[in-house]
């Protein structure tokens, strides 16, 4: 099992954001996490990626409890998260943004031999990475914007850049926090195409979103959260038809109608 979330609870001084949630993600899956606003989706991802400590429960990565690790150590192990509000290095070009994300690839490839780069060496590794950066930029449809400042990108492009940077870390499991929020219809279709390609290339995905139609198209399994609790889990169609899920999204009256 790639990722195992065991009875995770997250409290913010009295407010329970995530309550006793458990699930697993196996290698090669695409898992969707849905839920209305404030249902604890983002908090759950933050706990998994160690951006916030869990109040109770455990997160296991390939059987190892990663509860005591720093976010960068989690990323080093192949568990990488993107942000809901796009986070980029605004003052740098798109190319430089993605190049910063080659940090882990270079570290895995060269280790301490990176020191050679200081004396003008390490060019071969850097050239190989450059090819990979261009590949990722093409995949994410950012080629035209390569030399633009990241701060000047449109919202949709910034989100794609976030994903491009995540991919450059060569993750085994990519956690995507609402990649579709704020995107237009065309951008959403592009995003789905990119994610399908990424999955086909062997990356496991865990996608948080509340665009149900978007997830139905790509997720093999969906987990529904409401008020921090898991209320349903299973194939997308089954979960989306679950009365509890319908109620959480639309309210009781509409659900009965």
């Amino acid at each position, binding site marked *: 099992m790639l990722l195992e979330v065991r009875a995770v609870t997250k409290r913010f001084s009295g407010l329970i954001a995530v309550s006793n949630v458990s699930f697993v993600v196996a290698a090669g899956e695409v898992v969707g996490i849905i839920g209305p606003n404030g249902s604890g989706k983002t908090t759950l991802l933050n706990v998994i990626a160690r951006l916030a400590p869990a109040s109770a429960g455990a997160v296991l990565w390939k059987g190892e409890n990663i509860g005591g690790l720093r976010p960068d150590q989690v*990323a080093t192990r192949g568990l990488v998260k993107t942000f809901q509000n796009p986070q980029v290095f605004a003052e740098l070009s798109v190319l430089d943004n993605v190049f910063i994300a080659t940090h882990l690839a270079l570290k895995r490839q060269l280790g301490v031999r990176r020191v050679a780069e200081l004396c003008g060496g390490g060019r071969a590794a850097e050239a190989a990475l450059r090819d990979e950066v261009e590949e990722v930029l093409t995949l994410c449809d950012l080629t035209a914007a390569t030399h633009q400042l990241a701060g000047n990108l449109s919202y949709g492009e910034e989100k794609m850049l976030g994903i491009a940077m995540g991919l450059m*870390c060569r993750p085994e499991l990519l956690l995507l926090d609402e990649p579709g929020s704020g995107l237009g219809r065309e951008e959403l279709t592009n995003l789905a195409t990119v994610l399908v390609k990424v999955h086909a290339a062997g990356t496991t995905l865990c996608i948080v979103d509340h665009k149900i139609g978007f997830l139905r198209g790509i997720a093999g399994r969906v987990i529904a959260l409401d008020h921090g609790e898991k209320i349903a889990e299973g194939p997308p169609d089954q979960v989306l038809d679950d009365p509890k899920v319908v109620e959480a999204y639309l309210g009781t009256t509409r659900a009965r109608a």
Partner: protein
Amino acid sequence: MKLGITLFVLLAALPLAVRSDFVLTIFIFTFIYGILAVTFDLIFGFTGQLSMFHPAVFGVSAYSTHLLVVHAGLPFWLATLPSAAGAVLLAVVVGSICFKFRLKTFYFAVVTLAFAEMIRLIVLNWNSVTNGTLGLVVSGRPTFWWPGAGWVAVRGPVAWYYVTLVALAVTVLVCVRVLHSWMGRCFAAIRLNEDLARTLGVDVFRYKLLSFAVGSALASFAGGLYGYYTGYIDPGYLGINQSMEILAMVLLGGQGTLAGPIVGSLILTGLPHVIDLRGELRAMLYGAILIFAILVMPRGIVGSLVAWRARRAA
């Protein structure tokens, strides 16, 4: 890079055209302060950590280089190496504490300032070693090997001009290599968005410490050179006004650039000599320039020029 080499060649040729000791002296101070300002900018402008610890590194290295020459009998150049190691040790201790507690911006500045003051007070009161407020007179000179002449001492403005120019060039070269490597990319990532850097696998603590240590190691050479050039070391080297001067140089010249701190150093070293000013008036001038730079040119002289060229090219 081309511009850098051209400038170096021009500066190297300067003493052939300009014989004035007065001008050369200004340049010597510019080069030594340039080392301090460039290395401070590595920590502040490139990594985003406003350190007030630089004068402590500068001062302690001035003392340790001199004391190693006097008491351990090391030649000057050899003595700079353990001094640099000492500077790294200081940086690692202070940096570890600050970065472990995730001190940022003001908090980092204030705590590093407190550490610098602590070290200044130790230096001030450790009479048996440092001679307290009276300071130490440095009578020795660095030597170097010259073909045909053997070992010669660095004497006179022209020799000092070249020694300090080469020291600055080496410092800049090391900074260029560091900044163009994966380290530089991590520094930029930390400066621009620490949380994002973390999720991309950058060990923020380690790279902040690395920037602090590399900057301090290089700055230690400035301390050694300054003590030997002026022939005198006192606890004033470690004072807070030094921090303000370095900061003013970097802000005026352009933070986050390598040429900026050197330009700032030239202006702020040169001005008080060109316009003869008393100590208090000089401090006021620094203050006025600092305010002016922040209000009118937040990117500094070099930063504004770079931005202007980029706008024209676009």
